[in-house]
């Protein structure tokens, strides 16, 4: 099991240099050729509404489709699911007292799809099956960073006990510091971003001392998408080497 964590923020012009960082990720994927991707993301108002807003949702579908999100994006390619692995993860999570929502049908949004577009730019079909795990970053109270790390660690235990011989990649998505709404729109915090990048691999505990509210203060209202990264980090287990950063 390997780990690839990368971000999606190409809408902001200052992230152009970011695209130069992708080839090493592609090389790493070409080399390790994962079969399944466990992907932590947050839904951007495509699949979940406030009538039923889960803290954590785990997909267990045979296929995952993208759809019209209302603001002009192309519809991205569908994913094949891995229901057996999904249910194995779900059993572990509920056994570990995570009160997840299980989703046998779920539309996945651009925030999940674009990282795959970036990672596999020439793919006609995704070379990996998908197990999507959505984290609420939309509506307070959000799960704490500490809870998200624990969620990831429970997923890690599930992956460790999985008897299949698939190679499994763990993916975190979403932006680091950024804010779209309010008078502070446009806020970023390079210091906090560097702090996250410096600690995510070797010392994720440093990131989970903050409350979700602290993260908003430090990283902006949408900077809470770091919760996805923290959970993904947990799913990679204790030992981890950083192979690439951009």
């Amino acid at each position, binding site marked *: 099991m390997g780990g690839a964590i990368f971000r999606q923020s190409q809408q902001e012009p200052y992230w152009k240099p970011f695209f130069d960082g992708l080839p090493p990720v592609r090389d790493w994927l070409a080399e390790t050729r994962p079969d399944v991707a466990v992907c932590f993301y947050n839904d951007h108002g495509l699949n979940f509404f406030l009538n039923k807003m889960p803290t954590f949702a785990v997909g267990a579908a045979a296929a995952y489709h993208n759809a019209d999100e209302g603001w002009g994006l192309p519809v991205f390619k569908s994913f094949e699911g891995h229901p057996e692995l999904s249910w194995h993860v779900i059993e572990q999570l509920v056994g570990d007292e995570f009160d997840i929502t299980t989703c046998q049908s779920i539309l996945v949004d651009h925030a999940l799809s674009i990282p795959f577009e970036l990672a596999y730019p020439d793919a006609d079909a995704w070379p990996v099956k998908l197990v999507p795990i959505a984290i609420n970053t939309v509506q307070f109270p959000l799960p704490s960073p500490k809870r998200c790390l624990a969620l990831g660690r429970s997923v890690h235990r599930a992956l460790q006990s999985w008897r299949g011989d698939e190679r499994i990649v763990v993916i975190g998505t979403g932006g680091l510091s950024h804010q779209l709404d*309010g008078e502070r729109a446009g806020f970023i915090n390079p210091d906090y971003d560097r702090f996250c990048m410096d600690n995510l691999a070797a010392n994720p505990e440093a990131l989970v001392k903050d409350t979700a509210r602290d993260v908003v203060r430090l990283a902006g209202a949408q900077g809470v998408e770091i919760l996805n990264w923290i959970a993904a980090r947990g799913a990679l287990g204790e030992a981890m080497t950083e192979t690439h950063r951009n």
Partner: protein
Amino acid sequence: MSGNPNSCSSESPIPGTSLFDGRAAAKGYQLNAMCFSFNDARNRQAFLDDETGYCDRFALTAEQRAAVESRNVLGLIAAGGNIYYLAKLAGIFGLNVQDIGAQQTGMSVEAFKQMLLDQACSKQQEN
């Protein structure tokens, strides 16, 4: 966050930022429901064809209606709108991320873009 110099762990308000909490979620439910409906192209067209009638269908409050009419993003947020759903309404209005950033900060779009670039450059230099 102990390792970060900007750390300030408190319940004090966050400048220029309103958390979308239960109070906002309750206040904005109908507005956000309308925005959520815009995932469907037919609903976007129905809104464009008859904005008032479409707002009626979702029983928007007077405050929500006024914010929709004036295309005012801060007003939409004050009326309980959530940015993840409002983005779909902004799309109908032809407003992109930079446009709504400029509108909310009272900058020109050019100035807002420059502010983003400045922050990014300062980051690149420090790196």
